[in-house]
């Protein structure tokens, strides 16, 4: 596990996108979503578990994901979330918006002459 200094804060508004993306490959329970994000980002991003579940319920209310109870890998009852058609469309929108943001920020960062010089 990397040191806490190596971790990045989740940008506001990106949690939904990450959750939707985690479910794009198939249904997962909440714990699985958190672990998938953590492992996929090589422990750089760690979802606050206290924020994860309210976000899942909010997205379920909006119809982006659907929940149903099932059996976990450890043979326990777990609530699995899967992406709906509306959720896939939302994921596309969020990814597009994110890529535009990344390109825009990259353009700013790559522009010459904007460096701050130390006195």
């Amino acid at each position, binding site marked *: 596990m990397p040191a806490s200094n190596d971790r990045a804060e989740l940008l506001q508004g990106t949690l939904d996108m990450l959750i939707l993306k985690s479910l794009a490959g198939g249904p997962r329970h909440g714990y699985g979503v958190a672990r998938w994000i953590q492992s996929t980002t090589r422990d750089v991003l760690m979802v606050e578990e206290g924020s994860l579940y309210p976000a899942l319920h*909010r997205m379920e*209310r909006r*119809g982006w994901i659907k929940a149903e109870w099932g059996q*976990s890998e450890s043979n326990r009852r777990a609530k699995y979330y899967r992406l709906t058609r509306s959720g896939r469309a939302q994921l596309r929108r969020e990814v597009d918006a994110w890529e535009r943001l990344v390109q825009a920020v990259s353009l700013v960062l790559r522009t010459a002459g904007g460096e701050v010089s130390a006195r």
Partner: protein
Amino acid sequence: MIGRWLTAAAQYFRRPPTLLPHDLCRSIAEEVHFHMEEATREEVAAGMPAAAARRAARARFGDVGKVAADCYAAVSFDQLVCHRLHLGLTALLAGLLALFAVLWSLSPRAGEAPAGTGDISGQVVNERGDPIGGAHVLAVVKTWPPNGYRQQAYMTTSGPDGRFTVADVYPLGRQYEVQIATVADRRALESTYVSSEGEELEPVVFRLAPSEPLVLRIEGDDGASVAGAEVFPHRRIDAGGHDHLVYFQSADPIIRRTNEAGVVTLPCYLPGDKATVYVRLPKQEWHTRELVVPASGQPVRLTVNAESEGGSS
């Protein structure tokens, strides 16, 4: 968006919010419990003692109560909105009903005294302009309050100076109509009719011409004269074609009775007038009779068959 709210409304009416918390809280608790167990199991698998693993899992998760409350708020948001909308609309409806009830209770209705501030006033004079005291002034006021139509009769007599006033009988600022008739001893019946959109009524001057007595002999269908029959003048169309009326409901003060010989005198017509009179035999209904007023003093026989005729009009 619209579909989502329709679904939320359907869920709201299918499952009221009061039934929601128990199921929902149990579901959230079970989900959080599963998360804790999995996190603990992972730490134990990594070599941490079970008790420490549980503490670590709980510390990483944060405030379980707050998370559960946030989940509950997130899930029940639509239902809470629907519930508040429901309460709001119910309160609005109750308020409107209460307002309507108050307005309805405050509004004037047919049969109640009108909230009028307008007066009827004027003077009764003879052909020379001298005042006539003791003349009967019979007024009928028609108004249209919010809930219908009403017609109210007022009776008074002129003072020694011939003046009369009937106070507070029509609403200023709202539509009204007034019929006023004047009957004085040995004076021809006069009346006037005024329609107004709410203006104050100008004083009315009645200039009464001298009349000739109209003598009526009331007989039953057997030809016998009837004593105690009631009679009053209802209509007078003068030689110029002008129509003068006494409304039935205002006629009480001018009803006269036949004497033992079945004779009654109506001192409010002129020879040549077309007259309509109301007649009622004792304990019978009112009937109307039309006639042309003859030259002075000639009695007119009116036959009334009470059993075969209709009532008053």
